[in-house]
């Protein structure tokens, strides 16, 4: 079946602009995660949705970052007043049985965000 998809694959914006990044999880997966990965580093957790609600948003760096999942499927990560330091690859993952030790997260290909 289809995996996790993310759009756009690349996004170039100017400092101060607003951007939206979209994630389509695997059908039927109740949990959705956002991570951010800088060059040479491992992915860094941002936020985790269980259904429509954010179960853990402890990784969001500041109030410029916001994410929604209104119908419990597609999610949008929104970044206001972008800064050059926001440049990174934004990864989305989904899973079927969050909270269970054998749960597996399936990642999308990521959106590469470049802030000029």
């Amino acid at each position, binding site marked *: 079946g289809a995996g*996790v998809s993310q759009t756009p694959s690349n996004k170039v914006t100017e400092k101060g602009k607003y951007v939206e990044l979209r994630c389509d999880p695997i059908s039927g997966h109740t*949990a959705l*995660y956002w*991570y951010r990965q800088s060059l*040479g*580093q*491992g*992915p*860094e*957790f941002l936020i*985790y949705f*269980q259904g429509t609600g954010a*179960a*853990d948003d402890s*990784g969001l760096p500041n109030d410029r970052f916001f994410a929604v999942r209104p119908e419990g499927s597609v999610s949008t990560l929104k970044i206001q007043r972008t800064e050059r330091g926001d440049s990174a690859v934004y*990864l*989305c*993952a989904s899973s079927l049985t*969050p*909270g*269970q*030790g*054998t*749960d*597996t*997260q*399936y*990642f*999308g*290909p*990521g959106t590469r965000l470049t802030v000029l």
Partner: protein
Amino acid sequence: LAKTTQPISMDSYEGQEVNITCSHNNIATNDYITWYQQFPSQGPRFIIQGYKTKVTNEVASLFIPADRKSSTLSLPRVSLSDTAVYYCLIYNQGGKLIFGQGTELSVKP
């Protein structure tokens, strides 16, 4: 959360067996050990997960000693396409995955 330590990089040749060891001294009773693989310009991909002893699938084997303070990912007969970054993670049912820097494996012909 348990912290993991693994080598930053490793080199190997095609056809060799590669073993990557990860230390996780303060692993908790309910924690699982999970390994992900990441190719350039792709998201991480689940390889294998275990709780204790040995787990084997079509891709790799995972060896976990009785004290569970370390684990070893074993890749049999690597090929050039196994060149990637390998992450050892401790999953404790909290939802989020905590990634370290991973081990960059380079397979040479």
